């Protein structure tokens, strides 16, 4: 066994042992432990747990890679996935905590006094959460198969077993404490390579500052200016200004991600675990501290990885890397099929340009102004997901750093999967069974039901991770679209409008989901089946150029509009509900506990 593999095994299995130990120590004894960790988590602990809950395999592995290739356009993810916490902290979390229940559908049921509303909320929650879990399970399988060369299915199985042990045994309590440990593993794994790379490239160890510094090669050129120059001389769009589908699309995309984030039930649920309203507000702040730590490093990782990649392939202008002399990481990623080279002009060297034709193109660099010859691009595949994973190897970092990245990626995927599983199991055992189907369920049996449902959910998500449905790639749009167009508006109107009635809110939710799903399906295919889209998946067919991923914002507006129109015709909600809303809005009481 080589050194890297040995280190990776040590890193991965020692973190797993840690999670098991925590699960045993924090096992759940009551439904309150199982759903809300007994309501006694401190704001800082909760902030860390929210960070791990929220930052998934996508944040850890994919985001910096997206930014590396989108440049400025990637800002929608940075602003969208952090700005949502401002909305959560001010518009939802404190009042929902004040109300003091266990789940999001339960809140909807109380506020809109309707079992139908509760079932609609459960359905939204399950669809949004299951689609999310598929991605986490795939992340676990991929991390195992690439770093430990274990079979994908076996890796997935190990991941399922680890989650099963601590989520089923510990419920929210076990999940919270393991998430805190997973956050620590994740943030070290993310920032240590970034610090090394920032130091190598700019001499500044803080990546957020390194990104705005001059290069350490003595040229005195700023890193971002150099990157802009390098990419435009190869015909790519300028890094720091390249837009993502126009300003309106970026605007709608950012706002959709923000309200989608604020409406994701597995995140909202975490605010029910703290003892008071004040603690709920504070947890949102701590959550953003811990999330922001990774999210402000990500753009540095993206830009530096892109520059390193370009410099490896073309160390000095016109002196391209000879294919036979390519470094080891290049060969390793070629084996996975995520990196592909085709020697189109037969010169044995690698050309990486924006030219997708077979003929050289002569043009001028948009910044340098000099004449450039763009040879046909020979890097026919550069998967953006490899940027974070390959980054330490590209920068020649020591093996223990690479091993740490493997453990970090697994921590990111497992912590998010656990939070989602809890959201699913509580919505079934607490909302569907206890709330609607079998109201006389005893606490002991409800706890048992929660554990059984969670086991089933793990098996289903494992199966879906092993056999991802054809539409898996498009489902992120679905999850965020659902949260943004249905859950967020329903919750917000429930708090900020005293009059909003159940009928009007349900009409709004159905209309919001309807419009969003129709838009996604008409451009991406019904249930993402190719060939069933009746409008083209092309920019020119989009409504004002808004991409399907960004349409949740429009769905939310429709939801608000329909709800208020229906409210005008059907009349406001009963007086006891108005009193409940007034109580939610009242000054926070430090001693408020769960009234179950």
């Amino acid at each position, binding site marked *: 066994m080589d050194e890297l593999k040995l280190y990776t095994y040590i890193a991965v299995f020692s973190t797993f042992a840690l999670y098991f130990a925590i699960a045993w120590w924090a096992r759940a004894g009551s439904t309150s432990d199982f759903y809300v960790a007994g309501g006694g988590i401190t704001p800082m602990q909760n902030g860390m747990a929210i960070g791990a809950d929220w930052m998934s395999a996508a944040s850890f592995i994919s985001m910096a890679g997206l930014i590396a290739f989108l440049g400025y356009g990637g800002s929608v993810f940075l*602003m969208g996935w*952090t700005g949502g916490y401002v909305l959560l902290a001010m518009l939802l979390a404190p009042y929902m905590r004040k109300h003091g229940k266990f789940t999001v559908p339960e809140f909807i049921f109380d506020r809109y006094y309707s079992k139908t509303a509760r079932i609609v909320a459960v359905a939204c929650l399950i669809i949004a959460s299951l689609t999310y879990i598929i991605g986490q399970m795939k992340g676990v399988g991929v991390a195992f198969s690439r770093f430990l060369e274990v079979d994908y299915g076996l890796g997935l199985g190990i991941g399922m077993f680890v989650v099963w042990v601590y989520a089923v045994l510990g419920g929210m309590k076990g999940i919270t404490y393991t998430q805190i440990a997973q956050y620590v593993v994740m943030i070290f794994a993310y920032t240590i390579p970034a610090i090394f790379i920032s130091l190598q490239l700019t001499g500044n160890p803080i990546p957020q500052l390194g990104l705005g510094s001059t290069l350490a090669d003595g040229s005195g050129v700023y890193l971002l200016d150099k990157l802009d120059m390098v990419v435009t001389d190869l015909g790519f769009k300028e890094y720091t200004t390249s837009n993502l589908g126009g300003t309106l699309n970026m605007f709608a995309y*950012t*706002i959709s991600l923000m309200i989608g984030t604020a409406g994701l039930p597995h995140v909202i649920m975490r605010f029910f675990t703290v003892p008071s309203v004040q603690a709920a507000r504070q947890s949102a702040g701590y959550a953003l501290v811990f999330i922001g730590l990774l999210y402000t490093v990500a753009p540095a990782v993206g830009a530096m990885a892109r520059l390193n990649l370009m410099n490896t392939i073309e160390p000095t202008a016109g002196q391209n890397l000879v294919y036979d002399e390519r470094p080891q990481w290049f060969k390793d990623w070629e084996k996975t099929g995520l990196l592909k080279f085709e020697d189109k002009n037969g010169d044995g060297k690698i050309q990486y340009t924006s030219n997708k034709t077979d003929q050289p193109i002569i043009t001028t660099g948009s910044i340098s102004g000099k004449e450039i010859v763009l040879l046909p691009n020979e890097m026919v595949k550069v998967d953006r997901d490899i940027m974070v994973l390959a980054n330490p190897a590209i920068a020649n970092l020591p093996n223990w750093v690479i091993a740490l990245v493997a453990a970090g990626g697994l921590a990111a995927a497992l912590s998010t999967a656990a939070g989602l599983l809890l959201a699913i199991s509580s919505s079934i055992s607490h909302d569907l069974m206890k709330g609607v189907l079998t109201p006389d369920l005893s606490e002991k049996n409800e706890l048992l039901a929660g554990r059984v449902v969670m086991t089933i959910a793990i098996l289903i998500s494992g199966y879906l991770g092993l056999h991802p449905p054809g539409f898996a790639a498009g489902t992120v749009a679905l999850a965020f679209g659902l949260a943004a167009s249905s859950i967020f508006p329903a919750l917000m109107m429930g708090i900020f409008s005293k009059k909003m009635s159940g009928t009007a809110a349900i009409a709004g939710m159905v209309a919001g989901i309807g419009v969003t799903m129709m838009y996604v399906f008409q451009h991406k295919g019904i249930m993402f089946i190719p060939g069933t889209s009746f409008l083209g998946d092309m920019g020119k067919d989009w409504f004002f150029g808004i991409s399907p991923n960004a349409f949740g914002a429009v769905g939310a507006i429709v939801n608000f509009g329909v709800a208020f129109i229906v409210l005008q015709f059907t009349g406001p909600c009963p007086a006891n509900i108005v009193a409940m809303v007034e109580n939610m*809005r009242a*000054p926070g009481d430090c001693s408020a506990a769960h009234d179950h």
Partner: protein
Amino acid sequence: MENKETYWSENIRIILICLAIWFVVSFGFGLLLVEPLNAISLGGYKLGFWFAQQGAIYAFLGLIFWYGHKMNKLDIKYAEGSE
């Protein structure tokens, strides 16, 4: 009762201030005004680019803590007033 209503309207006022800043730093500086701001540089960063990839996040952080701080003070003030 009246107490509760002034508490709520003060809360709304603070939220509106926060959301105005939230909008300006992200959608304003990071998106709509990005081109003029990019003419200014902050070290090696173009300013608009910096807001979109760094500055907005720092501002969000400040806003949440400031909101929590203001509301905690209000909670104490109104809790004392009612008892």
